[in-house]
C-alpha cells in the first residue's frame, strides 16, 4: 500500500462546520438579537458550502492520481499513545470517503439553505443551526476519521446531535422522549461497535499489529483469519459486533425502532438524519470494513437476511401510515434494508451507490414534505391534504420525480442503484434466492406506498379545511431551489452507476481502490435484461394498484385492510407491536431491576449496616445493664454489706464501759476455748 499524500486542508472540511456550531452555539443568541437571523443563516451555511468546495477539491485531487494512490491524509497530532495503542488525530480521504463527504456537504448544505427558510419563524433559530452544524461536523468526522476510534467519535457525535435535534422542541415531552429513545437505542448499537473494535484491536495486537487505523487493520486482516475466541472465529465475532453497531445507526432490525420516532424533530432534521447523514453511517462503516466482512460469510448472510427482513417490515408498515413524514420514515428504514442486502451479498459498492442516490431522492422527498407541512400550517395527516398540485407546482414536480426514483422506474436514480443490488442478490451463489424474491416484493410495496402518498397529497380532491386551504401557497425560493437541485440529482445521479449491460458502473470502478472484495456478478446479459424488466414490472404493478385505489378510486383500500379479518392491517398499523414489546421487556425490565437494586441497597445492604449498628447498641445496652446491675450490683452489694454491717456494729459502740468490758471478757473466754480445743 502506498503512503498517502499529506495535505492540510482536509481538517477544514470538519473544522468549518464545527466552528460554525461553536460560534452559533456560544454567541448565536446575541448575534440573532443584534444582527438578525440572516447573520445566523450565513454563519451556518457558509462553512458547509466551503466544506463542499473543499470536498470537490479533494475529489479533483484524487482524480489526478493513479487509482492505487488515491489517498490524502491530514495529520494533526497524536491523540492517544499508550503501549501498542497509537491513535492519530488524522483525517483521511479516499474514493469512498469522497463520495460520502460530497453527499454530506452537498445534500447537507442544501438542507441548511432550505432550513433557513423553514425555521424562519422559530425563536431558537440560532440553536437550531448550532446543532445542525455540529451534526454535519460529527458526520464528517465519522467519514474522514483515519482510525476506527475517530470514526467512533463521529459515530457517537451524530447520535448526540440527533438527540438534540429530535428533541429540539423540547417543551413537548413526546419530542424529548423520542430524542431519548434515539440516543439510547443508538447506544446499544455503540456498545456492539466498541466491542467489535476492541476484539479486532487485540486480535491484531496478538499478531504484533495492534492498530485502530483502518488502512492498517485492513492490511493485516488476513493475519487474524485463524484466530478464535470462545470457539468462534474472531473475524466472524468482530463483524457481528460491528454489525450490531450498524443496526443501531442505520435502523435495522432489531434496533430500527428509534428512526420513525425521530420524526418528532423539525423536518429539515428528518431530511438530514434520513438522507445525508446519520443513517448512512452503518452502511458506510460496513463498506469501510469490507475486507473483514468479506472474510465472514456467516455475518454477510445474516446481514442479507436482516436487510431483507427490515426492508419488508418497514415497507408493510408504511402501507398503513397516514402521517406524511411517517411514510417517508418507514421508507427510509426499508431502503436502508436494501443497502444492507447489498452489503450482505458482497456488493458494497452497490450499497454505497444506493446510499448516494437515496440521499438525493429522500432528501428531496423530506424537504418536499416539509414544504407541504409548511404550507399546510403544520398539518401532517395526509387525509387532510389532497389536490395540492395546483398550489405548489414546484414541490409537486420535484416530489413526483423523487417518487419515481424511489419506486425504481428507469431512468431515475433509484432504478439503477436498487437494480444493482437486486442483480447481485440474484446472482450471489452463497445467498438464498429468497432474499432476491422478497426484496422484489418489497420493491413492489415501495412503489405502491410512495404513489399512494403522491396521490393522497398532491392529487385528487382537496380535503383540507377552508381556512387552511385558503392559505396554501408554494414555499419561498430558498426552499424550492434546494428541491430542484435535489430532484435533478434524483433524475441524473443514477447514470454514474450503469449496469453491466449498459457499459458498467463508473461508480463501482471509482470505489475499487477501497472496496477490494468486489463480488463479481455471474450471469448472462439476457438474465440481466430480464431481471431488470422484472423489477420494472413489479414497480409498475405497485404503481397501478395505487393508481386504482387513490387516483381513480376504482379499488377500495378497505378490501385489503380486511384481508385475514384485518389481522394484517392491525399488525402493520401496530408496527408489529415491537415498541410495546420492547417497552415491556427492556424498559420496564430495566426499571424493575433498578428498583430491585435500590431496594436491595436500602434494605439489605444498609439494613446490615444499620443492623450491625443496632446490634452494637443492643450489646452495649446489655453490657450497660450487666454493668449496672451485676458488676455494679456486686460492688454496691459489698458496699451495702459493709454499710449494713457497719450499721449493725455501730450499735456495739455504745460508750458504755461495762458493755465493752463484757465484750472483751467474752472474746477472751472464746479465745481461750478456741485455743484449748484446736491448737492444743
Amino acid at each position: 500500500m502506498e503512503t498517502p499524500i499529506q495535505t492540510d486542508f482536509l481538517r477544514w472540511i470538519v473544522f468549518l462546520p464545527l466552528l460554525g456550531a461553536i460560534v452559533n452555539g456560544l454567541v448565536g443568541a446575541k448575534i440573532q438579537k443584534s444582527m438578525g437571523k440572516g447573520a445566523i443563516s450565513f454563519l451556518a451555511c457558509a462553512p458547509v458550502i466551503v466544506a463542499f468546495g473543499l470536498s470537490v477539491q479533494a475529489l479533483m485531487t484524487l482524480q489526478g492520481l493513479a487509482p492505487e494512490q488515491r489517498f490524502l491524509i491530514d495529520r494533526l497530532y497524536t491523540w492517544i499513545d499508550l503501549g501498542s495503542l497509537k491513535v492519530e488525530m488524522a483525517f483521511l480521504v479516499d474514493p469512498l470517503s469522497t463520495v460520502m463527504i460530497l453527499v454530506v456537504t452537498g445534500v447537507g448544505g442544501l438542507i441548511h439553505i432550505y432550513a433557513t427558510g423553514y425555521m424562519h419563524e422559530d425563536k431558537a433559530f440560532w440553536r437550531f443551526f448550532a446543532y445542525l452544524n455540529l451534526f454535519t461536523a460529527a458526520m464528517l468526522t465519522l467519514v474522514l476519521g483515519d482510525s476506527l476510534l475517530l470514526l467512533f467519535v463521529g459515530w457517537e457525535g451524530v447520535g448526540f446531535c440527533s438527540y438534540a435535534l429530535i428533541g429540539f422542541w423540547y417543551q413537548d415531552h413526546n419530542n424529548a422522549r423520542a430524542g431519548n429513545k434515539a440516543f439510547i437505542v443508538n447506544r446499544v448499537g455503540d456498545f456492539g461497535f466498541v466491542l467489535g473494535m476492541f476484539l479486532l484491536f487485540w486480535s491484531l495486537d496478538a499478531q504484533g499489529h495492534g492498530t485502530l487505523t483502518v488502512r492498517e487493520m485492513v492490511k493485516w486482516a488476513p493475519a487474524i483469519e485463524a484466530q478464535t475466541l470462545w470457539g468462534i472465529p474472531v473475524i466472524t465475532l468482530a463483524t457481528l459486533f460491528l454489525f450490531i453497531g450498524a443496526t443501531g445507526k442505520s435502523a435495522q432490525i432489531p434496533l430500527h425502532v428509534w428512526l420513525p420516532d425521530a420524526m418528532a424533530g423539525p423536518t429539515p432534521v428528518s431530511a438530514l438524519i434520513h438522507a445525508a447523514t446519520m443513517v448512512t453511517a452503518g452502511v458506510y462503516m460496513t463498506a469501510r470494513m469490507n475486507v473483514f466482512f468479506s472474510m465472514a460469510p456467516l455475518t454477510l448472510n445474516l446481514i442479507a437476511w436482516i436487510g431483507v427482513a427490515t426492508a419488508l417490515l418497514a415497507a408493510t408498515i408504511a402501507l398503513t401510515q397516514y402521517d406524511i413524514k411517517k411514510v417517508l420514515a418507514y421508507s427510509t428504514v426499508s431502503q436502508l434494508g436494501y443497502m444492507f442486502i447489498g452489503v450482505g451479498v458482497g456488493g458494497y459498492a452497490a450499497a454505497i451507490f444506493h446510499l448516494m442516490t437515496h440521499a438525493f431522492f429522500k432528501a428531496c422527498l423530506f424537504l418536499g414534505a416539509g414544504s407541504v407541512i409548511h404550507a399546510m400550517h403544520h398539518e401532517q395527516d395526509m387525509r387532510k391534504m389532497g389536490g395540492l398540485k395546483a398550489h405548489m407546482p414546484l414541490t409537486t414536480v420535484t416530489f413526483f420525480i423523487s417518487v419515481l426514483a424511489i419506486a425504481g422506474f428507469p431512468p431515475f436514480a433509484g432504478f439503477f442503484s436498487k437494480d444493482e443490488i437486486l442483480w447481485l442478490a440474484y446472482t450471489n451463489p452463497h445467498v438464498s434466492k429468497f432474499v432476491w424474491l422478497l426484496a422484489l416484493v418489497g420493491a413492489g410495496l415501495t412503489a405502491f406506498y410512495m404513489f399512494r402518498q403522491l396521490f393522497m397529497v398532491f392529487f385528487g380532491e382537496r380535503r383540507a379545511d377552508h381556512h387552511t386551504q385558503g392559505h396554501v401557497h408554494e414555499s419561498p425560493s430558498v426552499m424550492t431551489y434546494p428541491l430542484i437541485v435535489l430532484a435533478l440529482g434524483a433524475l441524473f445521479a443514477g447514470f454514474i452507476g450503469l449496469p453491466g449491460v449498459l457499459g458498467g458502473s463508473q461508480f463501482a470502478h471509482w470505489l475499487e481502490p477501497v472496496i477490494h472484495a468486489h463480488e463479481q456478478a455471474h450471469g448472462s446479459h439476457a438474465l440481466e435484461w430480464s431481471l431488470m424488466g422484472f423489477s420494472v414490472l413489479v414497480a409498475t404493478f405497485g404503481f397501478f394498484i395505487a393508481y386504482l385505489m387513490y387516483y381513480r378510486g376504482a379499488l377500495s383500500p378497505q378490501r385489503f385492510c380486511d384481508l385475514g379479518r384485518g389481522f394484517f392491517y392491525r399488525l402493520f398499523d401496530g408496527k408489529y407491536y415491537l415498541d410495546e414489546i420492547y417497552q415491556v421487556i427492556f424498559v420496564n425490565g430495566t426499571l424493575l431491576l433498578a428498583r430491585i437494586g435500590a431496594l436491595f441497597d436500602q434494605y439489605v445492604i444498609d439494613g446490615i449496616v444499620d443492623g450491625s449498628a443496632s446490634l452494637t447498641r443492643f450489646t452495649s445496652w446489655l453490657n450497660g445493664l450487666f454493668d449496672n446491675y451485676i458488676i455494679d450490683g456486686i460492688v454496691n452489694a459489698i458496699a451495702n454489706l459493709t454499710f449494713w454491717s457497719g450499721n449493725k456494729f455501730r450499735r456495739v459502740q455504745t460508750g458504755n464501759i461495762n458493755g465493752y468490758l463484757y465484750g472483751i471478757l467474752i472474746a477472751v473466754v472464746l479465745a481461750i476455748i478456741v485455743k484449748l480445743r484446736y491448737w492444743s
Partner: protein
Amino acid sequence: MTENLLTYMTFIPLAGAVVVLLLPGKAHSLIRWVSAAATVPPLLMAVWLFQNFDGSKPGLQFIEKYQWIPAYNISYYMAVDGISISMVLLTALLSFLCIFASFGIEKGVKGYFALFLLLDTGMMGVFVSLDFFLFYIFWEVMLLPMYFLIGVWGGPRREYAAIKFFLYTLFGSVLMLLAILALYFASEPHTFDMTVLIAQADRYGTQPLAMWPFNLWGWGFQHVIWMALFIGFAIKIPAFPFHTWLPDAHVEAPTAISVILAGVLLKMGTYGILRINYPMLPAATADLAYWFLGALGAWNIIYGALCAMAQKDLKKLVAYSSVSHMGYVMLGMASFTTQGINGAVLQMFNHGTITGMLFLLVGVIYDRAHHRDIDGFGGLAAIMPVYTGVTALAFFASMGLPGLSGFISEVLVLLGTWQKYPVLAILGASGVVLTAGYLLWTIQRIYLGPPNEKYLKLPEINGRELFTLVPLGVIVIILGVYPSVMLDLLRASLDQLNQIVLPHLHQ
C-alpha cells in the same frame, strides 16, 4: 522554594486555617477571601509541578526526605510520581473552586472555612506522603474535619450521615493501621518508608497460613495484609458492599463538601491500592485482583447505575453514579494492561472533574428551589438556558460522549480490560447504556417538557457559580480532545507499576 514545594503545598492551607481562626468571627467576607487566598498558592504550585514534572521517567520526583523519629525509622518523606501527580492537581483545583462554592455558607463561617482548609491539608498530604506513618497521620487528619463539616453544616439527617461516614472510615483506618504495623514488623530493619517496603516486597510471604479461615482459600500473610488494606480502601472508593455511607453523606453534606468528597476522597481508595497494594504486595495483587477489583468493579458499574436509575433525589442519583463510575477505575486497574491502568488513573481525574461539576450543578438548583426532587422540576431549560447548557455538558461527559474527557478514560479502561477479561469488558460496556438511560431520563424530567409554573422566576446561574464550573468544563473538553496532556505524565510510572505485578500473574 522548589525543593520544599510539596511541603508548602500541603501546609499553606493549614496556615490559612490558623489565620482564619485568628480573625473575628463576624468578618465573614474577610474569612472567605483569606480562605480563598490560602488555596491559591497550592493551585499555582500544582500547575507549576504539572508543567515541570518529567513524564518520561518513572519513579519519584520532587523528593523531600528528612529524619523525623529516628528511633522508629520514621521519616518525613514527600514526593510525587505518575500515580499521584494528577491527584495533586485535582486536589488543589477542587479545593480552590470549592472555597468559592462555599461562599454561600452563612452559619459558623469561621469554623467552616478553618475546617475546610484543614481538610485540604489532609488531602494533599495523603497524596504526597511516601512514609506510612506520615500517610496515616494525614489520612486521619482528613477524617475529622470531614466529620464536622457534614455533621454541623449538613442537611436534616446530617448527624446520621456524619456518624455513618466516620464509623465506616474509622473501621477501614483501623484495618489499615493493623496492616501498616504488620508490614512494619515484617520489614528488616523495621521501617515505615514505603519505597523500602516496596523494595522488600518478596519478604511478605505468600505460603498459605494454617489459620482458619485463610487456610480455606490458601491465603498467605501477603493476602491477609492485602485484604486488610483493601477493605480500608474499598470503603473509600466506595466498592460494593461498603458503599452505602456515600449516598447518605452526599445527600447531607453541603455542596462544596460533596464535591470534595466525590472529587478527591473517593480517589484515595483507588490511589491507595495503586500506591500500596500493587507494588508492596504484588503476588497477592495478582491473585486477588480479578475478583476483588475486576469483577467487583464491573459489578459496581452495573449496580451503581441501576441504583442511580431508581433514585428520586438528584444528589443521590449523582452519588450512585459515582459508585458506578468508580467501578471503571477498579476494572481498569485490574486489567494490568497499559491502556487499562492508564485509563483507570485518567478516569480518577476525570471523575473528579465531571462529578465535581455535577455536584456543583445540583447545588445551584438546590440553592434556588430548596429541594432536589427529580420529578419536582420540569422545563428548566426554558427558564435557565445557560445553566441547562452547562448541565448538559457535565451529563454528557459523565455518559462518556466522545470529545469529552470521560470518553477517553472509559474507552481505555474497557479496551484494556478486553484483552484480559472480555466478559468483564462486556459487562462494563453495558454500563454505558444504563448510564445513558438514567442520565437522559433525568435531563428529560428536570430540564425538558413544559416549564414548571412554580419556577418561572428562578434566576439564571450567576457569575460566581459559573466561575466554579467553567474551569472544570474546560478541562473536560481539553482532556477529551488532547488527553496526552495528562497521559504523558502517567504512563511511565504506571507501566513500571504494571511490570511489578505482571510477573506474578498466572495466565
